[in-house]
Structures are given as C-alpha cells and as structure tokens.
C-alpha cells in the first residue's frame, strides 16, 4: 500500500512529548498494546512448550513405567533431587533415574495449570486480543495502557511463582490442576500454597486484562464502527473478557479460602470426622469438599469457552479472508457467542455428576449442557457453510483453520456422552475425558492459534513466515495430534483410568484360567500407551520447523509488498506495517461491515471497512498532526 515507507517516527512524535523510550521502555515496560501483545505471545509460547515438555516426560513413565528416563534423567535428578530417584543394577551402580509417583503427580497438576492458565489463555486472549483488537476497532491503543502493562507483569509474577514451586522442598502442587480439597489442603508441603498464590496473580492479570478489553471495545471504536460492524474476532474477545471478568473471581474466593485452610487452619473444605492416614484430623471440621468443586467449576466451565471463543474468532477472520466470501451468518455467530457466554455460567456442575450432589441437580445441569451445545453447533455450521462455493486459498493459516473445524467438531461431539449423566458415570475420569477436552484445546484451539500466528505475523513484523515450512509444520502436527488423542478415546472406553502413575499396568488384564475371561484392561489397550507416547515426542519434533521459522523469518522472511498482504477488509490491515505507536496515521472512519469480500460491482474482490460508500478511492493518509 501507499504508506509502507512512511517514516514510522512521525506517528510517535506528536503523540508523546517525552523523549524516545529506550530498550527497557520500548520492549520490557511498554504500554503499547502491540508490544504487550507480543510479550504475551512469546511468554505464553514458552510456557506452552514447557507444559508440553512436562507431558513428554510423563508419557515416558506411561509408556515405559519404572524404566530410566532417557536423555534428561540425570538433569531431572540434579535439579529436583530425590523426586527423580536413581535405579541401580545388580552391582549397585546407578544406571539411570526414574520418575517418582510424587513427581508424576506434580507434573500432571502443573501440566494442566501451565497449559490452561499460562499458555492458552494468555496466548488466545491476552496476546491476540492485545495485538489485534485495538487495530480492528480502529483505536490508537487500549483504554488503559498502564493497566495493560500491569496485567502482563502480574502474569509474569504468577508464572514465576508457579515455576519456582518446582524447586521448593516437596515440589510443586500435585493434587491435579483442579486442586480438589481435602487432598490439596492436607499435604504437608508448600507446593499447593505456591499454586494458590500464583493463581491469585494470574487471576489479577486476567481481571485487569478483561476490564481493559471490555472498556476498549465499548469506548474506543472508531467513528462508524457500530456493534454489527465489529469483526467477529472482536465479538469473541468481548464475550471472552466478560467470562474472565465474572467467572474468575469465584475461583479467587475459593483460592483465598483454600489458602486459609492451608495457613490459618480453617475448615472451609474439610468435613467433620475427616480421617487422614488412619487418624482423625486435628481440624475444626464442618466444611464442605463439594463447595470447592462448585467454586472451581464455576470458573472451570466458562474457562473452557475462554479457551475456545478467541480461537473461533481467529478462524472466522481467516476463513472469510481465504474464501474471499462474506462469512455466512454473521449475526447468528454474534448471537450464538452471546448465548454461549450466558449459558456457560449455568453448566458447571456437569463436571460433578460423580460427586453425589443429587439427581435433580444433575438433571438440571444435564439439560443446560445439552442446550449450550446448540449455539456451538450453530457457530461451527456457519463456518462450514462459509466454505461453500468459495474459491479457497490453501495457505498455511487457512490449512490450520480448516483442520480446526473437524477437530473441534470431534472434541465437541465426544463431549455429549460426558454431558449426559448416565454415560458420564462410566466415562468419567477415564482417558476418554482426556481425549475429549484435548481435541477441543490441542488440535482445536492450538491449531487456531497457530493459524493466527501465521496470519498476523506479517502485520507484526513486516515479513511472512515460510509457507513451505508452515505446511510441513501443519501436516505433521495434524497427523501426530490425531495419533496422540484418537487412541485415548479407545483406552477410555475400555475403562483405563486417568491419573494412573503406571499407565494402567497394575490393572493389566489377566485371563481367568477357569473361564478364559479377561479380568482387567486387555493388554492391547495398554500397548496403545507406547504408540501415543511416540506420537507425542514426534509432535514435539515437528514443532522445530515452527520455532525456527518463527525466529528466522523475523530477519529473513519474505518482505510484505503492501500493508495488506492478504487483501483483507478489516482495519488492522489499513495501518502502516508494523503499526507505529498510536496505530493509525489518521483516525479511520468505518463505512461498512467486516467481511465485504467479492461484492458485485466492485473492481477488486475486497472492500476495506474504511472505504467510503460508492467505491470512492480512499484518500492517501497524510501525516497526522
């Protein structure tokens, strides 16, 4: 576009009388929403890989229980001590280091915590939201830039506390990412206390972010950007922000109460007559373990939509752009998203059918759970129909989005048996559940996030990531994701319980000599563990092209030839590349909806939102003053 070569500094000078910020001011303590978005993205990607690494180690234990950990065994032992104890051969010589059960539990709990609260939420919501939302609504920045910076800093503090907890005596929290009491409360180590305090920082970070996003979307829309002209991505972030704003505080309350149970010896979640290791616990009692579960899942379920809605937003933008067609059913998407936002607050107890909370309550939550699947299906259907008759550009972001649709579909549909009370009784706490929610979050959300990275990378850096390596990354990730999670459905339906330290070896099926019936889990299902683990490690290997591509392309990628390389309609492509501080050279005016692709009678197949009516050419932006 015309203003690619404009001097980036002039957008800055008139904005701020003070001097040009130095390195620290520009990249570390920045209040610019784009820098904060990138900070969030890189931090969250690091955490994602770290959380994945924990799981790769756990997959070793599941596939080869009790065998010495290859490659990193002695490193683990040096860092974590006896949590990774040595094993000896016949002569007493240490031949390697294994994963203790406690370490397995800690890794399991922290894998969940890190992936959800330090990986996906910051990447999907904070990173993409920060970078894209103000640009898409035509705003110069977020409404509260300093609050935005505080949000990122609080996130980093929370993350550091979580990481430090691995190295304290007794190790990190090990009661699962759900931290059910009394298990979480009664342990004598401090991992859980670190977890709670870390969570309080992460919740604070989300809260500050959510307030900022909503205020920005309400207050900072450019002239003409009315609600029904907002790109769907902005709507998705808007609803997500409300979920974070309203669902996280009850978890904060629960965290405060669990902290009181840990440090002030209260009994919020500890019942009367609790017996620990054969002894009556010295507590006042009178508390309710169910109370924790209610408060946790009151966050936990909206959290699922926090994970998926931004992903849907990204997919919508990229599908519209690459089908060169208006998205089908824009209003249905918006209203469905609002319906999901509302309904997600009244489905939480479908995670608790097994707790004996009562059949009437179960019936209520079963009903609401079935109702919430309707707007989800509407959204997915709109995306599928949007493909119909399009002349699709199969670039890397689009491939990830196209994979998202069936992957999210599998994840969603396999959730139905879990939403029904009676089928959940069997499937609950098995690998089926793991497969179900990972299909939503891993090949679902994470694929959409990859798509978003490939899609907006040129706007952030001025260069494209390599298409070839992008496609390699896509096809191999697609293959291995399915090889990891598809067998878990089978294992789960065979009755293999989750959270088993040895991958179910203890319960391996033995043929009863009298009848020939196999009691336990048949070996064929346990053997799948090895296959899944190999696929998981392979998945890690095929992320290497992505990591190299991500950093290499910053300096060496193909330069963008215009500010709008994808020929998109939304406002983020109507800025210089990369956008300067303050984003737009002149205040954009919005004249049309977000997806005016291939409008008959127009010369080109896309009409940007800020193009005036009657197709009059847009004036070349002049230097702002």
């Amino acid at each position, binding site marked *: 576009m015309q203003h690619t070569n404009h001097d980036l500094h002039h957008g800055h000078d008139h904005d701020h009388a003070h001097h040009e910020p130095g390195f620290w001011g520009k990249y570390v303590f920045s209040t610019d929403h784009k820098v904060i978005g990138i900070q969030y993205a890189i931090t969250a990607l690091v955490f994602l890989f770290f959380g994945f690494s924990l799981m790769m180690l756990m997959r070793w234990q599941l596939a080869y229980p009790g065998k010495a950990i290859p490659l990193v065994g002695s490193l683990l032992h040096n860092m974590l001590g006896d949590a990774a104890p040595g094993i000896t051969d016949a002569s007493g010589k240490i031949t390697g280091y294994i994963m203790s059960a406690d370490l397995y539990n800690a890794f399991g709990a922290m894998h969940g915590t890190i992936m959800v609260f330090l990986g996906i939420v910051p990447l999907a919501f904070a990173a993409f939201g920060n970078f894209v939302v103000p640009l898409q609504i035509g705003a110069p*920045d977020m409404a509260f830039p300093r609050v935005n910076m505080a949000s990122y800093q609080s996130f980093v503090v929370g993350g550091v506390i979580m990481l430090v907890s691995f190295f304290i005596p007794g190790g990190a929290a090990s009661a699962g990412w759900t931290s059910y009491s009394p298990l979480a409360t009664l342990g004598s180590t401090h991992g859980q206390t670190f977890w709670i305090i870390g969570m309080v920082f992460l919740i604070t970070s989300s809260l500050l972010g959510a307030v900022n996003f909503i205020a920005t979307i309400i207050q900072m829309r450019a002239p003409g950007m009315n609600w029904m002209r907002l790109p769907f991505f902005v709507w998705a972030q808007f609803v997500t922000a409300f979920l974070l704003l309203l669902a996280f505080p009850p978890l904060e*309350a629960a965290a405060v109460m669990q902290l009181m149970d840990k440090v*002030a010896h209260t009994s919020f979640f500890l019942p009367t007559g609790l017996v620990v290791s054969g002894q009556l616990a010295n507590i006042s009692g009178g508390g309710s373990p169910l109370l924790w579960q209610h408060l946790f899942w009151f966050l936990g379920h909206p959290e699922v939509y926090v994970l998926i809605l931004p992903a849907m937003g990204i997919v919508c933008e990229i599908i519209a752009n690459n089908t060169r067609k208006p998205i089908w059913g824009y209003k249905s998407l918006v209203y469905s998203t609002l319906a999901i936002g509302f309904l997600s607050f009244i489905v939480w107890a479908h995670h608790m059918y097994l707790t004996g909370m009562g059949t009437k309550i179960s019936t209520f939550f079963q009903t609401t759970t079935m109702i919430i699947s309707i707007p989800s299906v509407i959204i997915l259907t709109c995306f599928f129909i949007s493909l119909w008759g399009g002349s699709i550009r199969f670039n890397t972001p689009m491939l990830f989005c196209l994979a998202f649709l069936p992957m999210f579909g599998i994840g969603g549909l396999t959730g139905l048996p879990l939403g029904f009370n009676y089928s959940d009784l069997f499937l609950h706490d098995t690998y089926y559940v793991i497969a179900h929610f990972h299909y939503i979050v891993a090949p679902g959300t994470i694929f959409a996030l990859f798509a978003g990275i490939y899609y907006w990378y040129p706007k952030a850096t001025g260069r494209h990531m390599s298409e070839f390596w992008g496609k390699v990354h896509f096809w191999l990730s697609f293959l291995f994701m399915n090889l990891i999670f598809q067998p878990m459905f089978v294992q789960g339906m065979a009755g293999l319980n989750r959270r088993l330290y040895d991958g179910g070896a203890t319960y391996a099926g033995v043929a009863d000599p009298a009848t020939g019936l196999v009691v336990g889990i048949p070996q064929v299902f346990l053997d799948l563990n090895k296959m899944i683990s190999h696929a998981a490690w392979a998945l890690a290997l095929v992320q290497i092209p992505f990591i190299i591509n991500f950093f290499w392309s910053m300096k060496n990628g193909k330069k963008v030839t215009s500010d709008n390389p994808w020929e998109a309609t939304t406002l983020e492509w109507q800025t210089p590349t990369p956008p300067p501080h303050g984003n737009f050279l002149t205040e954009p005016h919005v004249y049309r909806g977000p997806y005016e692709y291939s409008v008959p009678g127009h010369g080109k197949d896309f009409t940007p939102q800020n193009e005036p009516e009657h197709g009059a050419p847009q004036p070349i932006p002049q230097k702002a003053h």
Partner: protein
Amino acid sequence: MEIPYTVKPRPDTGLYNAKVGIWLFLASEVMLFGALFSAYILLRVGASAGTWPHGLLNVTLGTINTIVLITSSITVVMAWVSLKLNQFGKFKMYQAITLLCALAFLGIKSVEYKDKFSHYQIIKKDGTYVDGHMHGATYLDKEGKSREEHKFHGLSFKENNVEYSLKEVVLNGIEAAQLSEINEPHKDKEHKHEHKNISVPAAEIQKINNYGPWHNTYMAIYFTLTGLHALHVIGGALVIGFLWGPGAKMWRTEPERFTNRIEVSGLFWHFVDLVWIFLFPVLYLL
C-alpha cells in the same frame, strides 16, 4: 492518535473510560464477594445443629461501624459535589472526614478482632464445655515454681531456655454441657448464663482454642469476609488519601480529570460500604 475519552464522555455511551473501567471492576468484585456469600450460605445450611454461633458478635460495635461507613459514603459524594461546584476547600474537608471514618472503622474492627482472639473455648475430657474470655493462666516450670500469665501461651512454652507447662486456665464465662447452649443462647431460656471465673486444670483439658478463624466454619467465614472487606477499606482509603494529599495537585492543571478521579474512587468506596451493608446483618444479626 491520542487515546480518546479519557476525560470527556463518549457521546453514544455517555461515559468516560475510567467510569466504564470501574463499573466492570465492581462487577467482578460482586462476583468475588458473591462467591464468599454463597460459601457462607452453603456452610451455614450444612452446619450440624447447634454448631453455628448466634449473637456472638457485638451488635453495638457493628451498628456504630455501619453508621461510620454510611457517613463516609455521604462525605465522599459531598466531596465530589464540592469539586463540581469548584469549592476545593470543602472537598478537602469532606474527604478528610471520609478518611477519618475509614480509620475509625478499622479501629473498631481491630477491637472486635482482638476480642475474638482472647475468647477461648475448652472442651473438657468429660465432654463438657467451658467458654469465655481468658482471665489468666498459671504455668509451672520444672521445679514446680508457678508463674501467672494474663495471656494464654499454649499448653507449654519456652522462655530463656526454661520450659513452662500449663497448670490451669481461668476463663471468665460459662460452663455448658452441650455446644448448643453456647452457640444458641437465645433458644435456651431455662439456664441463666451468668459469666463467672471458671478455673480449669490442665489435666481436664481435651482441647482448647480461641475464636480465631480455626475455631469453626462460622469464625472462618467471619474472618475471611471481614478481613477481605477490611483490605478493601484500606485500599480505598489509600487511594482517597493519595488523591487528598499529593494527588490533589492535578486540580490545578486538569480539574475535570481530577474530578473524574474523585468520582471513580467514590464509586469504589460506595461499593465497599455496600458490601458492609450486607455483611452486617449476615454476620451480626442473623
């Protein structure tokens, strides 16, 4: 481009940015306290008969604190109105009263807290209860020399390498055969519970603890709710204090923005008061 609507309201929403922000923040605060109130309801409904204390807190002090906070809510509004009327001196006066109210509230609250920490309950080995404020405790060292203390130091304690063990405690309170006599005095019209000094030898004590958060779930939720509320009072007072002191400089340069700041901090202050309006009946009266 500058960030718009930092001071002037956006025409179609009628709000400036910070006002949207504070209302959203308060919405999340409602959910935070809402969750704790839900916990209160669940714990109370689930409590076994006779275990939930009634009339434990000092209603007079609670009422005074309620009046103190309502007064501060009025002065916060008056301070904002004074700025709108361009009367900076009056603003200073009203916010000074607000800050004094905040201090008074916290002072009274700490008196109430202190009272609970010196209030003990003993479960005797015969299963009966002694409940009352600590009058004194007698400790013995190894040679059998006794030592009087006004405070309770546990069943034994060490000082200057001398170990002292408890001989007896004296509580100023009542004896009861059942917990419900202590927790539900309003239901028990037959016994007249006159407070007197009751001495309990260490050998008869099964369990002794004071009315801290560890005492029972009522005390747990009482301390958690009022503690969290007190943190909000402190936070609000710090912000109001800053805007009253060093932050007031802004009045000379950007009066409208400063007035907005007072409005936003006032909204927060009203919320903090409102939480107390719920806390007072729930914890003191019901």
